[in-house]
């Protein structure tokens, strides 16, 4: 599936929820399914600085694709992180770099991307794109694209 197909799938899933409780319960559930970061990578270097909840992010590059793992100390943040990873992980650097994450808005989670929510989500997405950008230029330099 492409990044946008996954986003559409998420939007579809969320449209089934009657109220915010169900929505948040689902987010919390997704947090539990997050591909957890290997303990060895849960270091201060891999912390994404958000004001309140901390997020650890690690990226692996395999056969032209990037795979992300992560963790957070807040479960709602963990759920949001899980969603972003579901959308972006396993894709080629160029796709990740150019991805436009419209699902956050569409599933009614926009407030989590605002500056005040300082949950590290915005910085995490930025970090993922930066990683993708770095891998992309490396690929180009090696002539593999």
């Amino acid at each position, binding site marked *: 599936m492409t990044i946008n197909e996954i986003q559409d799938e998420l939007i579809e899933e969320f449209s089934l929820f009657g109220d*915010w*409780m169900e929505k948040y319960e689902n987010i*919390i559930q997704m947090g539990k399914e997050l591909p957890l970061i290997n303990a060895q990578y849960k270091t201060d270097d891999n912390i994404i600085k958000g*004001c*309140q*909840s901390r997020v650890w992010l690690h990226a692996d590059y395999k056969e032209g694709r990037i795979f992300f793992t992560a963790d957070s100390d807040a*479960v*709602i*943040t963990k759920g949001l992180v899980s969603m972003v990873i579901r959308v972006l992980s396993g894709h080629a650097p160029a796709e990740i770099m150019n991805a436009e994450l419209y699902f956050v808005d569409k599933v009614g989670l926009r407030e989590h991307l605002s500056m005040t929510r300082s949950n590290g989500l915005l910085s995490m997405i930025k970090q993922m794109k930066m990683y993708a950008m770095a891998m992309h230029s490396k690929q180009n330099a090696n002539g593999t694209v």
Partner: protein
Amino acid sequence: MNALHTTADILDIEKIRADFPILQTKVNGRPLVYFDNAASSQKPWKVIKAIEDYYTKLNSNVHRGVHHLSQKATDAFEASRRKVAAFINAAHDYEVIFTRGTTESINLVAHSFGKRFVNEGDVVIISALEHHSNIVPWQMLCEDRGAKLKVIPINEKGELNIEAFRELLDDTVKIVSVNYVSNSLGTINPVKEIISLARYNDIPVMLDVAQAVQHMPIDVQELDVDFAAFSSHKMYGPTGIGVLYGKESWLNKMPPYQGGGEMIKTVTFDKTVYNELPFKFEAGTPHIEAVICLSAAIDYINEIGLDNIARYEHELLVYATEQLSMIEGIRFIGTADNKASVVSFNLDGIHAYDVGVILDQLGIAVRTGHHCTQPLMDIFCIPGTVRASFAFYNTKEEIDALVEGVKRASRMLR
């Protein structure tokens, strides 16, 4: 307080709530429960109307014009200064300096007092309970002057260790700056004792009263405090304006903070003669509208009465503490014997941020995080807390909604 003394005879809450239009807001279809008063309070009609009045009847620059409007604006501006002075019982109007807020007031003192009185090897004392705005300016000063910052420790209830403070006092200490009420924990500090201990050693004291002026009567002369700082926006007044109170004797010895218009008497390219108090510390066109409307906020507070406010808010604090303590796994951070209407807590194994998100869905506004007191959170080894802070327009029914909300969050997040 005797058992017969109920809320009803302290304050008419229904009537008070009607004075604050924003309290009618609906969040996700539910009535807003505003428990983030320590961050910023809401404004009564009296203040909102005063803002309109200012721009429809008075707007003009102050202290400069000879024309009608400028004189009216200046009169209102200076009347507000007198009102503030009376509110905190300052000995002189000109001991009231208008600033942008508590933060700027503290920066002003750290800069101007520090420049004149703090040198290499000297010591500045703050406490473990301070807001970043009463830490960082002193840290910057100490770095600049080669001075040392020392910190009064706290006990596990979040109370200052006065014995330790006593031991810190010697003739290297040039100033003590502590808050009256802790914004994160609600602890009311024994400032009279702190001031008299410092006074005994001839050390001036600055009080950050940002979380005190709106909750209890403050008399700077009775306290015999040297400097005090507070913000209008936390006391039902407009944002962007605050107050520095300073004893005349200190203010006269301190150099200006910023240079510009208003703060000068005469300027030539060779030499500038500074204006007298309070203008020496008020460079540039001030936030005229907010200064004038702060006066309306003080009128409003006085109409209700700070003693009544203190009594009623204490009732809310006791009720909230009682009700919340019945929730399984709750841990209060800050359990001082003497507290203002702030309740800070965590739920076992649950991040404060998660609780805040769920409460927000329920229309309940609390603050989560470190509340700009990171060093304090480090002492308790937590990243932050959920903080509910009450004002006199809050009700026990709203506290019930908070308790239900916290229980619900606890069920969802476990």
